[in-house]
Structure formats: C-alpha cells, structure tokens
C-alpha cells in the first residue's frame, strides 16, 4: 500500500483535529453533568424539605393543591434527570470516539456541486457545534450507506429529502486504536476483501464483534431496509445473520429517533439465555443501549402467569438423550403436531366452539326469582359481536346480569331485614345481619356466574384432550399424524399430573388459547420485532407472536439447515409469511459464509441435502480430520492432545461439542483433570465469556463460534438419523479455523470416506 507523504500528513492532522474536538466536547459534557448532578441533588433536597412527603390520596380535591405544589418541584427535577441521562450517553459515545473516531472515509461529490466532500464514518457522529462542520458521520446515517454499497464512480443514497446522487472519488479505511493511526489504505473491492480476510483470520475475541467496518453490500441492504413490513433472511451458517439482526436493530433505533421510536418499541426474540448474554455486549457497542431482548420462554411465563414450564432446552435434551426410543419419538411427534398449522386450526375451531359447547352456563336466581336461564344466557353471548375477544364478551354479559341484580338489591335487602327482624336474637343488629346475608348470597351468585364468564384455558385444554370423539370431530378435514392416538393419550396423562413442569408444547398451545380468547395488553406498542434462529420455531410460535405484536414490522432470520430435532425446508418462510400476513414482505438469501475456512465449509457441506450451495469467503486453512483409537480412554487422550495443539497455536476459544448435555457432562468428568487449562462445562445456567476451553452440547452452541472445534462421540450410536445430520452440520460450522472429529467404536455412517480417517 503506497501512500504519499502528503496524504499521510493530512490524515494525521485530521485525526488530531477530530480528537481535539472530541476531547473538548467531552470536557464540557462532563462539566455539564457535574452541574446537573448538583442541581438534581439540590432540587431533590428542596422538594423534600418544602413539600409534604406523602400525599395519601392524589385524587381527592383537597389534596389537589398539594399535588400541584409538589409538581412544581418535581418537574424541573425530572427534566434535569433526563438531561443528565442524555449527557451520560453522550459521554460514553465520546469516550469511544476518542479511542477510534472513524474507520472509513469516502470522498463524495454531490450532483451539481463542484467539489468533493470528505465524509468520515464512525460508530457515532461528531459535529463542531460552532461551525456545524460534520467531523464524523454515524455509520447509520444515510450518506454512510454509499460506503457499503458502492465502489469508485457513480453512486446514490436515499435520504429523507429524496434520492441523492453523485460520484465517489475515494474510499479509504483506517485502523485507529487508542487515538493512534495504525495504518490506512485506499480501498477497492479486492483490497476490501483482503482487509476482511485479515480481520476474519484473527482469533475470535470473547464476544461477538461489531461488523460496521466490514458490512457487505448484501448485508447492508438488509440492515438499512425500511420498506418491508416483513423481512425474512435465509442465511448460511457463518453468513453473519445474527450480526445483521443486531445491526439492523441498531439502525432501526437510529432511524426511529426521528419518529419517537424508543427502545421500548423494539424487541429481539432470541432462542436461549446463553445467546442472550452473548449479544448483550454487542448492542451498546453499536450505539444503542437498551433494546429489549426476550426469550420465548419469558413470553410464555408472562402470558400464562405460571413459572413451571418446561424450557426448550429441557425439551431438546430429552428428545436427544432419553434412553427410551419410544418416549423420545412420542415427545418429538407431539411437539411436531402441536406446533403445526393443523393443530393451530384445530385450536381456532375449539375457540369458536367454546361458547356453544364448553361454557357451563347455569340458570340464575335472585331474590327468589328467575334472573336468567342458561339457554337465554348462551343466546345472549352468541348474539354479541364476534370481533371482540371472548373474554371481553363474557365480561359484558356478566355486567349486564349484575345490572339487573343491582336494581333489585334494595328490595332484596328490605326483605332480608324483615326476615331478620322476626328473629329475636338479632333485634339490635338487623342492618348488619341482613347485609351479611346479602353478601353471602351475592358471593354464591357471582361464583356461579364466574363459572362461565371466566375462562380457565388450562382446564379447557385438558378437556379437549379428555374427549377423543370430540377431538376427532373438531379435526375433521385436517391432516393428522399417524400416531395421533398415542399423542392424545400421552398429552392427557401429562395434563393429569398436578406436579412438575407443563410440557413445552402444551404451554405453547395454552398460551395460544389464552391470547386468542383474552388478549394481552402489554405488548401493543412494539413497532419492530427481530427474530433470530427462526428455523427453531413452529407455526404456533409465529401465531403467538402475531397476536402479541399485531402492529409490528418484522425481521426474521434463520437457516433451515440448522434445525435441532426437526426437519425444515424453504417452505418455512412461506408459512411465516402466511401467518404474519404483512403487506410488503420479502425473502433474502445470504449464501456466503464468513466464519469458516474453505476447508471447514467444504467438509460441512456433506451434511446438507444436495442442491444447497455454500459459498465461502475464500480463506484457507487446514482440512478437518476424523480420529479414533482402540479404546475410549485412548480417544480421550487424543482429544487432550488436540486441545494442547490448539493451545500452542494460540487459539483463544476452543469448543468441545457433544450431542447432548448428558454427553457433555460425561466428557467433562473424564477430562477435567487431564487438560492443563481449566475446562468449563456450558449448560443452560452458565454465565460465560467465550475465552478458554469449553464443553458444550450442540443445541447450546448454535449461534456461537470458536476458533477451534472438536466434535466428540461421532460414532454410529450418537449420530445416525436425519436430525443428527443437522446437528453435525451445526457443530462443524461453529469452527473458524480448525475442526477435528473424534469417536471410539463404530464410526457414524453420516461421515463420508473422502477425509482423513473418515468412514473407513
């Protein structure tokens, strides 16, 4: 890379100026915050001294003036607090900026202008408040998109004011650390690729990195899209799906600032808690602090108001490791069926049938007279507008019954008083005793009414499975699995048990019933939903999500080849799009893998169905190999050796991947004293920083990456089915640089013979 001394000098000077400006702003922001802090403390003190601390009834008139008085003090405090928080965020951004203010520059000439403007791009913006000169543009600003999408020559970008065109004369990239310019180079596509290759060949740091410097054109189109209501991305392993999801969330935040979109309006649904921690560090890096990230389990807990629900990981562990093949099969088939479109349709029919068949209406009496008979109550409910949720219609019905009761209450009380007065023992407390009797009978009445106006979805669901002939009559015309009898029996037994966790699949179904009949209030303002690892979800998941976030726009990312315990194909995306039913939707494919070396990718491809293409970003490495030895302890020895080799090569993260948690625990017990460096077992409860040697079940490893991967137990017993093939694919594609496989006994039939040691 040749650079003239002049541009070297220019860049050094520019960096110096930028840093000086940032330092100046940082000093003033810090000072301002100190002042704000002092002001808040003072204002709070004044408020405490001059106002009553406790206003017991904010709503009564006499206290209204107290409230007004209090608010005179409270409002400035609140203002100061939010100002303080804003400044605090600015300070954080400036501190980052001082370390590395920008990573790229483009020289762009707007159409009709004579001169090229130098546009520096970084993680956040920096502007000289006096001259209004932009020193650094946020990577998410409209003009920055040129950097990701165009080379030298004609270019354009969309801005709020319409399309802006012009010409790019220069693209330059920088490596700046701790405020020092390490190097820079002028980039065309080849050199950019070289730069990317260099970055990729570095060992994985402990956390997922931001990719703002290396966003590819296809990725950028997804990150910056604002057109689509439903954006679906099918991305190969290592294609940067998750990074794209996170950057998109950050971009939406940035765009949303103008529309008053706050972090409360964006939610990321992630598959497991480990993953959640893993991404936690990426978003603040990108500039946004508080995007809500949610596990699907958390949704179930809050909808069902029940803590004891089997988690997805517990379900997977059971399906992968249960010793009884018959149990395994039925659990899996049950999940497949209950997650399916057919079952969702059956549940919808069930809901429609509830008023006619499942609500226990009864004849109601009050004051010795007929209030309403069960037939007319049912008729009245059926008359009500079906657009409203069932629970709402029932509440209305209850209200109308009570209205009649209230009208008659005084007469009833009078009768009771007379009755009581006749009894000599109550002469002195006629009023109270009459009231007590009235309360008693009203309590009995309301309990009778609530038997049909309150819905117990768990109970209703249980009854659905208790009545087989009804179940089949509802399912008329729907395609049912062969083992439906067994599924019904199995479910009925599970629901009979009063202790223990509610099975994962039943929890989903009951949550669906609950949402469809009673709705959910808290999630209505969500405007953007990002879902990662979409291939793990069943139609019923998307149905639930759709009820929860009816007004949201969706970004859904997945890889149909990385399923666990199920099979999936491209029709997944058709289903998603049918369920969410958004006006504008699209499916984008990311084929190129940036994570693995060519050799690892080629090796992994054997586990894919033919016709699936994997394109690697050409980076070379060693070919994976399969190892075995005469005994299982000798294989353990080989594994220990391999870990040692990886250590000497300075690989930061080394993953030993097993099929199940059970296998992982067993391996951990065997190895923990043999490996010099500390080995960590990762299970659902572990907090981690991915640096070191880890043993992990494959379903937990999804979405993560390691410098070196060792896949253990690749024998016939562990890996033989179609589902196992997917597991091997996931495990292999976790590796960045080095991949080796180990087994004892008979090799898995899924491994081909073309590789050293493979399929002998």
């Amino acid at each position, binding site marked *: 890379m040749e650079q003239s001394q002049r541009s070297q000098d220019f860049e050094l000077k520019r960096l110096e100026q930028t840093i000086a400006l940032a330092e100046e702003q940082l000093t003033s922001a810090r000072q301002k915050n100190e002042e704000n802090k002092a002001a808040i403390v003072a204002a709070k003190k004044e408020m405490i001294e001059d106002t009553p601390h406790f206003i*017991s009834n904010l709503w*009564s008139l006499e206290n209204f003036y107290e409230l007004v008085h209090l608010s005179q003090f409270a409002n400035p405090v609140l203002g100061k607090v939010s100002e303080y928080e804003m400044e605090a965020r600015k300070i954080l951004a400036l501190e980052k900026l001082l370390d590395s203010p920008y990573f790229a520059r483009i020289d762009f000439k707007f159409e009709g202008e004579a001169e090229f403007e130098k546009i520096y791009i970084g993680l956040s913006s920096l502007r000289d408040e006096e001259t209004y000169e932009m020193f650094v543009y946020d990577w998410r600003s409209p003009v920055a998109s040129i950097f990701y999408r165009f080379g030298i020559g004609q270019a354009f970008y969309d801005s709020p004011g319409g399309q802006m065109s012009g010409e790019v004369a220069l693209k330059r990239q920088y490596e700046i650390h701790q405020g020092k310019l390490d190097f820079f180079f002028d980039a065309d596509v080849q050199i950019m690729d070289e730069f990317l290759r260099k970055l990729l060949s570095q060992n994985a740091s402990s956390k997922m990195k931001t990719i703002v410097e290396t966003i590819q054109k296809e990725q950028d189109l997804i990150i910056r899209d604002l057109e689509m209501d439903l954006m679906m991305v099918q991305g190969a392993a290592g294609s940067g799906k998750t990074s794209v999801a996170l950057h998109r969330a950050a971009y939406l935040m940035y765009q949303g600032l103008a529309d008053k979109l706050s972090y409360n309006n964006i939610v990321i649904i992630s598959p497991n808690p480990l993953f959640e921690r893993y991404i936690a560090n990426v978003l603040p890096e990108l500039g946004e602090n508080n995007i809500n990230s949610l596990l699907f389990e958390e949704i179930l807990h809050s909808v069902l108001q029940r803590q004891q629900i089997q988690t997805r990981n517990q379900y997977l562990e059971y399906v992968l490791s249960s010793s009884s093949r018959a149990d395994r099969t039925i659990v899996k088939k049950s999940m497949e069926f209950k997650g399916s479109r057919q079952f969702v349709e059956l549940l919808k029919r069930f809901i429609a049938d509830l008023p006619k068949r499942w609500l226990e209406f009864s004849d109601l009496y009050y004051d010795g007279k007929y209030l309403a008979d069960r037939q007319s109550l049912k008729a009245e409910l059926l008359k009500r507008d079906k657009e409203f949720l069932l629970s709402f219609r029932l509440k209305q019905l209850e209200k109308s019954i009570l209205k009649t009761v209230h009208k008659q209450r005084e007469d009833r009380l009078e009768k009771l008083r007379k009755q009581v007065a006749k009894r000599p023992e109550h002469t002195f407390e006629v009023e*109270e005793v009459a*009231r007590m009797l009235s309360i008693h009978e009203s309590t009995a009445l309301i309990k009778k009414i609530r038997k049909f106006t309150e819905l117990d979805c768990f109970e209703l669901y249980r009854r659905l499975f208790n009545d087989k002939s009804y179940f089949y009559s509802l399912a008329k015309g729907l395609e049912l699995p062969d083992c439906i009898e067994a599924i019904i029996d199995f479910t009925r037994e599970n629901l009979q048990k009063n202790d223990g966790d509610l099975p994962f699949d039943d929890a989903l179904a009951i949550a669906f019933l609950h949402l469809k009949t009673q709705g959910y209030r808290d999630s209505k303002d969500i405007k953007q939903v990002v879902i990662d690892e979409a291939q793990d979800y069943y139609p019923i998941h998307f149905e639930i999500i759709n009820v929860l976030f009816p007004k949201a726009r969706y970004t859904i990312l997945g890889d149909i080849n990385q399923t666990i315990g199920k099979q999936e194909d491209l029709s997944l995306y058709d289903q998603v799009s049918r369920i969410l039913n958004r006006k504008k939707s699209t499916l984008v494919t990311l084929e190129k893998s940036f994570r693995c070396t060519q050799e690892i990718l080629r090796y992994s491809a054997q586990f894919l169905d033919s016709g699936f293409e994997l394109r690697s970003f050409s980076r070379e490495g060693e070919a994976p190999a399969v190892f075995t030895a005469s005994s299982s302890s000798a294989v353990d020895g080989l594994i220990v050796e391999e870990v040692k080799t990886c250590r000497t090569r300075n690989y930061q993260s080394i993953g030993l991947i097993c099929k199940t948690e059970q296998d992982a625990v067993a391996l951990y017990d065997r190895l923990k004293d043999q490996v010099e460096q500390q080995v960590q077992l990762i299970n659902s409860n572990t907090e981690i920083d991915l640096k070191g040697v880890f043993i992990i079940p494959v379903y937990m490893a999804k979405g993560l990456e390691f410098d070196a991967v060792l896949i253990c137990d690749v024998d016939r017993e562990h890996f033989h089915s179609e589902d196992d093939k997917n597991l091997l694919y996931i495990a292999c594609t976790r590796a960045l640089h080095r991949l080796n496989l180990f087994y004892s006994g008979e090799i898995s039939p899924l491994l081909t013979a073309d590789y050293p040691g493979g399929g002998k």
Partner: protein
Amino acid sequence: MIFETVAGILAEILGIDDEDIEKDTELTREYGIKSVDLAKLITECERKFQITIHDEDVHSFRYVNDLVEYIRRVQQAMQ
C-alpha cells in the same frame, strides 16, 4: 386518607386500637373478623365515603388494602 378512615372504622367495630390495623391485616375469621363485622365495615364505609360497595365484590377483599383500593377506584370512577 382512605386507609386511616377504614382502619378507624374497623378498629371501632372490633374494639381495638387503630394502630393495630395494618394494610395487610386479613379480613378473615383468623384475625378475629366475623362475617357480621365485615358487613358492618362495608355498611359504614358506604356511609362515610358516600359510595356503593356491591355485595358480590366483597368476597374479593382479602386484606384491608383490597377494600381501600376498591374505594379508591370507586371514587375515581365517580369523578
């Protein structure tokens, strides 16, 4: 304010000190509150606060605070 009033009424009915009534005092027999005491409490509250407490709602008052909140809501609805 509502709580203090309710506590005062209840204390008088039971013949105990106001301070012995707390927000989480249970309105049950175990706490020495009989059905008829509860009926008295309800009637008195209606009179004091000039509101109607529906008899079918009374079973949901498990703690003193439940009644306090109910009264608060009724007052709000009236405004």
